[in-house]
């Protein structure tokens, strides 16, 4: 009998897989974005508008991760972008292995941007590295400005926070300044955008950030 010291995090094998995947994507000039939010925050709606605005400039594909159904993939394909449905087999998140399987399903075509629309959940997806170069999270106005306090990890690991459904702000007591202050306290470098997919407000700023990220990744 002997004792072996490991001293590695439980998700170490996933972290290694994610690192390898990130390297391969960079080599191919594909930007992978891990899009995270709670159910109903507007992930698919944000993507629909973004794809419509950017599909003439970039080759875009979407991987829809859900526990079940393919309604989101169908919505994306209607816009002419390639979409695959990844089922997580009951899991509450995507990991690097599942992401690789979904990427394989996209086939050999080149994409400038692949968006992984993660399972609607503000907790578990934050814990698992999928191999994405950038993590983008959404928080919709009806959810409330206190969410950084309740789900700190998600705000800590995200590169970008998009506040969505700003068109309904007059009907809710959402304090934008308080929300941003709380998010920046957890993550001083987080980029924050405010958008409404209904009116198109704020999409220019978000899309120019995204276009720059795609171009930087190809360089």
């Amino acid at each position, binding site marked *: 009998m002997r004792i072996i010291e490991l001293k590695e*995090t439980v998700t170490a094998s996933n972290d290694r897989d994610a690192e390898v995947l990130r390297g391969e994507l960079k080599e191919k000039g594909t930007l992978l974005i891990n899009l995270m939010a709670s159910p109903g925050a507007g992930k698919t709606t944000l993507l629909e508008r973004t794809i419509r605005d950017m599909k003439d400039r970039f080759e875009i594909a979407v991987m829809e991760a859900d526990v079940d159904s393919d309604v989101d993939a169908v919505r994306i394909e209607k816009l002419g972008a390639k979409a695959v449905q990844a089922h997580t087999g009951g899991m509450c998140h995507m990991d690097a292995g599942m992401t690789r399987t979904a990427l394989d399903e996209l086939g050999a075509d080149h994409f400038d941007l692949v968006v992984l629309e993660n399972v609607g959940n503000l907790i578990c997806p934050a814990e698992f590295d999928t191999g994405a170069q950038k993590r983008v999270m959404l928080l919709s106005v009806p959810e409330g400005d206190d969410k950084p306090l309740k789900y700190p990890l998600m705000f800590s690991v995200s590169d970008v926070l998009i506040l969505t459904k700003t068109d309904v702000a007059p009907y809710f007591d959402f304090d934008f300044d308080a929300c941003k202050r709380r998010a920046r306290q957890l993550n001083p470098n987080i980029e924050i955008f405010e958008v409404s997919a209904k009116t198109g407000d704020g999409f220019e700023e978000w899309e120019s950030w995204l276009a720059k990220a795609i171009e930087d990744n190809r360089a």
Partner: protein
Amino acid sequence: MHEMGIILHLAKSLEETAAEQDIQKILRVTLQVGEVSGIMTDYFTDCWNYFRKRHPVLETAELELETIPAVTFCGNCERTYPTVQYGRECPYCHSGETWLLRGNECIIKEIEVE
């Protein structure tokens, strides 16, 4: 809240280690779990006991959990305090400018093998 997902990754890490080091059977796995890692230890152990039976290398592995106390640092008065007792607000100066120093990790400390 995602104990089963963590167990899957734990099992994968251990199987990789076993294959690399030519280990046939793992007898004990010691994990260090942070107080605020969000892992429910009872449920975690249940998941492990369900899962290990499916893997020959892990079948005999008892799970041992050690707790890492959570400690928060206050950026305003630069003192540290126990997170679980006081939460996000510094008990000394009542500042909200605080950061978790440790207590959200889940580390495989060591394994005992045959």
